[in-house]
């Protein structure tokens, strides 16, 4: 086969971009013969309780400004990709030919992913499933007939390569390098999130009490967080000098900037422990009423890795405790972290890219790329 393969990177939601862009970049660098394009479904705004899809016009402009080649959604079928790379199990939404690869975008289950449920069988519609860590491959491999490859978490590659450090991240946010930094990274579901528990008292995290001297709070809400949550925390950021509202879709810089992370059952807490950040895990009292609640999912089973809190006062105390005892639970973080993302060596995108080219039976490109890397 001599013609250049065409590979489409399909961004169903903006938060998927950091999970596929490094793979595209690796291919551009190491296999320039491959034609790559980026596309997304038509924009539908998220509403309270419902996810949106696609990218806004501004986000599409940002993609183009990065030098990525944009392919309008309506032209995908004509372009006829050999493979479509996506970060979610969106098989039903794709109506063009070619192989389908899901590189996934999270570390946890929420009753949907990496769990022994019939719905997981939807992954069999794909041709290749790339997962972040050995734990995920271990769960999925016995359940699926399609190949499952543990690549590492693609979006951590800049961390593994030393390009994104705590110092660069804090500089990015304009935070003092010596400050104490807390990240609040909750999920979006009313029954699961830390937000209804903390609400506006999250501002007390930066109040100069109990030795909280130069402490800053980054607030990074989930992309599907209800508008009222966004409005409240934007206002808090306007009212408190040391509270910073993060608009970016990429969580990793916020995690890197933080010393301590407050979360709930969000994938963010798994990413935090993989990056060896102490975590405070807020237990929403409505947790078990979540329609897809399953206590066997890792977000519930692995909560011993963090300091748990049921109320805002407990959460405030837990954050202080984490600052005072940063090494506590470090072994648990490392054990779980390795299961979740393997080694953070900066080569997850390379592993994913090579798996994709292998799927396309382009061994000559694989050989060449490996020789060049």
């Amino acid at each position: 086969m001599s013609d250049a393969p065409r590979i489409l990177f399909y961004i169903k939601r903006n938060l998927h971009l950091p999970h596929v862009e490094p793979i595209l970049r690796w291919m551009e660098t190491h296999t320039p013969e491959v034609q790559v394009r980026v596309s997304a479904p038509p924009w539908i705004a998220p509403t309270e309780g419902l996810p949106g899809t696609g990218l806004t016009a501004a986000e599409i402009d940002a993609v183009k400004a990065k030098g990525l080649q944009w392919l309008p959604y309506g032209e995908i079928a004509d372009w006829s990709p050999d493979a479509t790379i996506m970060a979610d199990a969106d098989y039903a939404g794709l109506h063009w030919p070619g192989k389908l690869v899901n590189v996934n975008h999270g570390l946890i289950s929420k009753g949907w992913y990496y769990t022994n449920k019939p719905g997981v069988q939807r992954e069999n519609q794909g041709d290749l499933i790339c997962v972040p860590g050995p734990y995920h491959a271990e769960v999925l491999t016995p359940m699926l007939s399609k190949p499952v490859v543990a690549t590492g978490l693609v979006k951590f590659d800049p961390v593994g390569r030393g390009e994104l450090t705590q110092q660069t991240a804090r500089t990015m946010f304009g935070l003092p390098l010596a400050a104490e930094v807390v990240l609040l990274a909750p999920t979006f579901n009313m029954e699961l999130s830390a937000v209804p528990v903390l609400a506006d008292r999250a501002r007390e995290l930066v109040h100069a009490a109990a030795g909280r001297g130069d402490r800053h709070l980054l607030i990074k809400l989930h992309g599907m967080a209800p508008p009222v949550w966004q409005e409240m925390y934007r206002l808090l950021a306007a009212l408190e000098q040391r509270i910073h509202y993060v608009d970016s879709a990429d969580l990793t810089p916020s995690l890197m900037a933080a010393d301590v992370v407050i979360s709930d059952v969000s994938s963010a807490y798994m990413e935090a422990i993989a990056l060896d950040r102490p975590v405070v895990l807020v237990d929403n009292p409505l947790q078990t009423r979540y329609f897809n609640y399953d206590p066997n999912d890792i977000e519930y089973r692995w909560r011993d890795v963090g300091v748990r809190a049921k109320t805002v006062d407990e959460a405030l105390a837990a954050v202080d405790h984490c600052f005072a005892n940063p090494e506590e639970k470090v072994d648990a973080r490392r054990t779980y972290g390795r299961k979740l993302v393997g080694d953070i060596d900066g080569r997850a995108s390379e592993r994913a890219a090579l798996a994709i080219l292998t799927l396309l039976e382009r061994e000559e490109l694989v050989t060449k790329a490996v020789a060049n890397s």
Partner: protein
Amino acid sequence: MLRAIVHLHRASHLPHAIPLLHVLRQAKNWQLVVTRTAYNMADKVGLPPLYEERLHRLGLRVMPLDEAGPADVCFTFEPVRELAGCADKIVQLPASLIGKGLRYGGGSSVARDNLADLQIVPGRWHAERLRRSGGIFVPVITAGLPALDPILGGWVAPREMLRQQLRIEPQQKAILYAPTWNPELSSAPLLWTRVRTLATPERVLILRPHPYLPDEYQQACAELEKGDANIRVAREPDLQPYLHVADAVVSDLSSVAWEAAVLDKPVIRFDTPNHREYTRFDDTDPEYKLANIGPLVRTLDELREAVDQELAEPQQGADLRRTVRDQLLADTQGTTCARILQAAGELVQRDASSAATGRTTVNVLVDARGASLNAVDGTIEAVLDRGREPATVHLLGVANFAPDIISGWQGRWPGRVRTDQLPKQLAADPTSHLLLLKAGTVGTHGWLFRLVNHLRRHAGLDAVAPLAVGGRPVQEPEVRIQQGDGIDPAYESLDARLQFHQAGELLEPTQAPAPDAILLRAGSPLTTALLPRWRKRDWPDTSEKIPVGIAPDVVLEFTGRRINANRMTSALHDDERARAEERVRELSQWIQRGMPPRIRNVKAESHEPAAVSLDPATLSGPLRLAHHYIEQGKLDRAGELLERALHESPGDPAAIQLARQAGISVNGYVSAAGGKS
């Protein structure tokens, strides 16, 4: 001179509009404008070219609604929301004798019908059903069916002339076949072209395909006419001439069948076995309750046989038809259109709605403390110009406004704007309602009317709040209508969508919404307790359960609170900081509304001696059930049980305590002292 818009939303309205257009053109004190919805066959709205051409032949220009200019009255057969504000008064006219799950108090018609200022229905059966629906709060009068005026009034063309035009020989009988269009209700899919067997040298068959039947059926009818000298196709939108010449009418669940019956024409109805599959099937509609207007047949052979019998003995069903006519048609003299104009004229001349319905007075207490002039002005306008409810505004906290500003408002709305902060006797007047409203709150056309309707409809309820206020939904309207495509989160859009999909429903009360807008039954214990606190801005926190009904058809906007946090920097002005802090507190309360009290950030402060909570296990059966309903938020049912318990045991302390806790008014059994009053 009064200016009238006659708005045509659907093609099927035209036969009913034509007689009214004739009458309006001849009326000396009316000026006429005809408007129509843009044509869209897929949605079955607007006028197809043939129908618009019919109006042109009458010498009438048809225009889009937005070109019509202001009018005194808009006559419409379907009060679609787009008509809101197009005229001082909207009058809804009947376009059918039957319901089809859409009209006369059935199905989802309640919200739509309340958009009009006056409902005109064909007969007493319809008026009575609307009354029983409990959901119509505009005046309803009976006047007949406009489409029948030409025949009943004798101003349709002579029958013989029409027969000649249709080439019907003197010895021939005429059979009109007029099926409806809905697949589940129409006989057209069942009979299709087999109906041609009704045509014989002795009988001319007139096919009148409904304009919404598919093109292939329309073409099949045209083909039948070409191939059979005894078949005609009714091509004019007007139905009256064809009804006039018919010796018998064959139909199904079309209004035409009942129109023929009230004209004392023999009617044969073809049964449609799938009619229960119709999405709006409602067996309390007149087409099922008053179905006995002639033979109901199920096969072609039965149809032919029934036609033979009916033509041979046309008077055999006359008694049945007369019985139905008495119930469905208030006018048999052909004066319906004249009655309509008279009622509309009277409506314009007086504020008829309050007199006709005995509407409760609404006193609106507007908290203008610290509000901008624009915010207060906008709210008064929203209440008095767009509320569609007779109301008086009482301003609180306008001492800083210049006297000429106040007098300007009082000049613009004479007698309806006061600075008395609401006298105590008005707050205690049980014949009125009290709306507590923060300046800056605005609503769409008819919002106050819709809000008040919930108190009218639910006697056991003492407080109603809109579904959403100020971008802070009480019940997540955008989620409730999530099936809609491309949801526009603007409050006007939400309000418009909700009006049609959700109106008439009373949700379970939730924890107290913030009091940007809350309507109270004046004089109720709840009002007595809440009003002083609202005046002091000492509203209870969300841990205090206040039984508030949610008006799912009302979405309001709070224009004064929105702060563009995206623009904000840390250098906030003092007033911006204060507003932002207030907004944060409110948002926080809203976000935590579903959390148990131990989680919520706001500390509950007791304002009144805490009532001892009742242990349900110690209550009698009915009171235990009432307790259960209160917990469930089903206050209507709880109120009924408590009222019954207090009737049987006046002064029962447990019943009174339950009623007070829930804020339920039980017909005077609960007084401030807690005993029977």
